[in-house]
């Protein structure tokens, strides 16, 4: 059974059709890349999956349950997590505090006024684990707003991971990054996918990253689905080359 099924989703803003009749079925453990030229509707498509926007029509089924109209927080409780194209973090809190809030939310402590010593220690241990994974341990007590862009991005991905998601949505994780940072993030995503068998949907402009990571690729153009297939199939697809890769190659 597929973990996520998007059925004929459309999103209109007035007369503008941002996403038109797009469907997708995602197998557990799959890493799917969504590519397409600027303005293709990738982020809007993403927003309907994560609940940031409600689709105008169509259905979104997550793990057998219709989540089309559920608010974002409830989708998170069911196991969806996302990052944003423009990094969304808590800038005036430390890395540790950022992660702690995420871990506590995932542990269902959101409304708690107290924590036992054991609970607090468990949260602390999980935070330490996430810090380790991200390589931010030595910056744990710095304010996130003071960190380099790449570190902020890593912090955001770790906050999403703190939720122990079954589906991770990453919107251009390498946007605005240098080669080294892109490499680090790519390696991190690959690790999550290979080692933790995490199901991931990824919007990405960097074709090296896409072809390195993706099991399958979906191409959007002008809000419509242009093609879908393995990286080899997409690379060989003439319509895709014409609409997108051709331009990039030229």
């Amino acid at each position, binding site marked *: 059974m597929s973990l996520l099924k998007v059925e004929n989703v459309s999103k209109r803003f007035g007369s503008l059709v941002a996403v038109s009749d797009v469907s997708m079925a995602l197998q557990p453990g799959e890493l799917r890349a969504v590519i397409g030229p600027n303005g293709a509707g990738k982020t809007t498509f993403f927003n309907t999956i994560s609940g940031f926007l409600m689709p105008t029509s169509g259905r979104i089924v997550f793990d057998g349950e219709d989540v089309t109209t559920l608010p974002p*927080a409830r989708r*998170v409780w069911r196991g969806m997590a996302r990052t944003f194209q423009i990094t969304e973090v*808590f800038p005036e809190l430390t890395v540790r505090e950022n992660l702690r809030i995420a871990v506590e939310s995932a542990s269902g402590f*959101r409304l*708690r*006024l107290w*924590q036992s010593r054991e609970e607090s220690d468990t949260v602390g241990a999980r935070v330490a684990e996430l810090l380790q994974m991200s390589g931010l341990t030595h910056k744990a007590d710095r304010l996130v707003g003071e960190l380099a862009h790449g570190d902020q991005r890593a912090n955001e991905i770790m*906050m999403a991971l703190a939720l122990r998601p079954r589906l991770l949505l990453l919107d251009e994780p390498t946007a605005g990054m240098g080669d080294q940072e892109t490499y680090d993030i790519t390696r991190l995503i690959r690790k999550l996918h290979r080692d933790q068998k995490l199901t991931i949907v990824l919007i990405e402009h960097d074709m090296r990253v896409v072809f390195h990571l993706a099991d399958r690729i979906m191409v959007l153009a002008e809000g419509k689905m242009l093609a879908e297939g393995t990286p080899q199939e997409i690379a060989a697809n003439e319509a895709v080359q014409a609409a997108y890769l051709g331009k990039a190659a030229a």
Partner: protein
Amino acid sequence: MTPANFRKLAILGCVWALLILAPVWMPPLGGYTALGTRVLVLGLAAMSVNFLLGFTGVLSFGHAAYFGLGAYGAGFALKFLAPSTPLSLIAGTLLGGLAGALLGTLIVRRRGVYFAMVTIAFGQVFYYIAFQWSSVTGGDDGLRGFSRQPLDFGAFKINILSNADNFYYFVLFCFAIAVAVMGFILRSPFGRTMLAIRENERRARFLGIPIERHIWIVFTLSCFFMGFAGALYALLNNFADPRGLHYSQSGDFVMMAVMGGMRSFWGPLLGAAVFVVLQDYLSSVTVNWMSFVGLLFVLVVLFFPRGLLGFIRGKAAS
């Protein structure tokens, strides 16, 4: 102990030492104990506004309504129910808090400027009710004919009506309880979700925090604190005034919080102290005292955007 913890403890020690010894050090400096009581009460109100503003990032411009309701609640209890000071505090706190809980459900869906506007609108509704419904509220003259009662411990009574020091310590005790509860909430996992909402609503939402529900809870809690402060204010004056509900009073509270420093726990208390002392001193010199307070406010916002306490802390840290 880390230096940061040590500093926090030192600040805490200083604040409480100053507050406990206020009746000793205030008179030689030209103050009087009742002035200190006023600082405590208005400081608690400013801290309640800041609970919402500084720690959740939500600006209410109508919080005086819940302050005023607290005052009227205390007044009604003393006048019509029973001559008991604790009962009046409970009545005021409940009236302010429950009104906040109810109206909060209508308000929390709005954001930013719209939130502020809706809070003003609801606040003014209460002002006009208190102003017009003279037979119950005393109208423009305010609610009179009650006074705070001695604290009855069975074996002995404490006179807080005519002994200013006793009343100061009673208010300080109430203040300490309210502030301890506030501090406790802020240090909890729930308190951290408040910071998360202040820092980045979108991220908080996508960490699975239902924003509207959490803002409603914080709004309601701050209204309970506000009602408590209002009840103390009624005991302080033996009088409840419709102007205590007016939006200009809300503005004063916001001003105290911003002037003292919204990001710091004690900032609003400092802001209230500056405000009250300036008002006390300047209003005996000129009727236009508010112009000077306003000028100071503008200067603080321009030059110390983190408020007076934020500025002092920055100096201490560097």
